[in-house]
């Protein structure tokens, strides 16, 4: 039977862990709420941006802008978005797993695969495996449009210069606090939404010229996409942490219950032995 003192120690340690996980769960819940809000708030802009681009893109030749041109995928870049902090269940491992599958696939058919990372977890993981990064950026759990811009700009530059022929992003799509999808999505070349069949493209007046507008709008569209990916990833991180911490808290309560039972049993058996000793001692005396 385990030592009484040891069990007592164990119980108090589990309890203090539980307090931590509980607090983390609360924090994650409130951060999730905020992150979710920003995801929702950012949607109208992103949706309209893609509408505008779509209506613009059907009226220009595909070769007109370098970011619309499709080339053979010889050199591919993958951008992996994870979080900086751990303790969020399988969040980071799942993204990395999906990224690895993608990398292995592409390695066989492409000449070169390069990597960029957002978030400390992906950076550390791939650094240990001797990858070099084109870009690395941290992911402190909040983001801004200008961060999205600074992540996307060098990627666009590399694409325009022909250094890479396609860009993919591995990130977590936010569905709800409980469900998140890991996706690997192509960022470049762009594929503007096609018009529905019954839609007739309207003739527009452009101000300034069509080309100037296109040159201005396309990079912005990519920043917008980057921004919403970052937002979704962050919301997923908080959601994932919340569920992970919730189950950790539940496990801790279960553990405490089990240990308390063990403790009581040990205490009882200690008392029983003691009593037996006293009784047998008394009996020996009276005889």
């Amino acid at each position, binding site marked *: 039977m385990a030592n009484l003192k040891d069990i007592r120690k164990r119980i108090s340690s589990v309890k203090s862990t539980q307090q931590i996980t509980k607090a983390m769960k609360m924090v994650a819940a409130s951060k999730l709420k905020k992150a979710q809000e920003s995801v929702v708030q950012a949607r109208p802009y992103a949706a*309209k941006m893609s509408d505008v681009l779509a209506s*613009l893109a059907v009226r220009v030749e595909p070769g007109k802008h370098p970011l619309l041109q499709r080339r053979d995928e010889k050199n591919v870049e993958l951008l992996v978005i994870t979080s900086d902090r751990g303790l969020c269940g399988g969040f980071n491992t799942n993204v990395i797993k999906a990224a690895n599958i993608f990398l292995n696939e592409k390695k066989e058919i492409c000449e070169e695969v390069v990597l960029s990372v957002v978030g400390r977890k992906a950076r550390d993981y791939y650094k240990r495996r001797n990858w070099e990064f084109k870009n690395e950026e941290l992911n402190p759990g909040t983001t801004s449009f200008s961060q999205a811009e600074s992540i996307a700009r060098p990627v666009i530059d590399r694409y325009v210069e022909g250094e890479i022929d396609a860009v993919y992003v591995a990130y977590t799509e936010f569905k709800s606090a409980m469900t998140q999808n890991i996706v690997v999505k192509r960022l470049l070349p762009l594929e503007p939404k096609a018009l529905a069949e019954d839609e007739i493209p309207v003739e527009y007046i*452009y101000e*300034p010229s069509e080309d100037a507008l296109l040159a201005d709008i396309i990079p912005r569209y990519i920043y917008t996409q980057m921004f919403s990916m970052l937002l979704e990833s962050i919301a997923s991180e908080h959601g994932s942490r919340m569920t992970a911490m919730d189950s950790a808290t539940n496990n801790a309560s279960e553990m405490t219950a089990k240990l308390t039972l063990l403790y009581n049993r040990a205490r009882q058996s200690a008392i029983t032995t003691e009593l037996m000793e006293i009784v047998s001692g008394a009996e020996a005396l009276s005889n």
Partner: protein
Amino acid sequence: MESDKILLEIASPYRQVLNVEVDEVIAPGEEGQFGVLPGHTPFLATISVGQLIYRQGDQLKYVAVSHGYAEVEYHRVIVLLDAAELPQEIDVARAEKARLRAEGRLAEMSHEDRDHYEELAALDRAMNRIAIAKI
């Protein structure tokens, strides 16, 4: 939808700023201000820093806008902007601070400086916010 109204939607990356029915929109296009009345021909333009004005009945309302795009359809105007604020949302103290900061930096640098243009733009935005808040 009634045929003599325009649906004005303004969105920035962070949020939807406005979604209202209006009678007229006057926007600061990059190549000059333009006005939109119901039934305007489809039109796509870049917007620069300035004041977007919309009319509801005989009431004029102002929005502080920065760089972005406006897509005009017959009865709909979609404006996508880097940033947009309604007059009541503008933090005048903050804008004033931004103005002083930009002015200070501009005084220190020459015209050839790389950031000169950016600081000018920052000053522009701050002045615009202050102007809108005072209307």
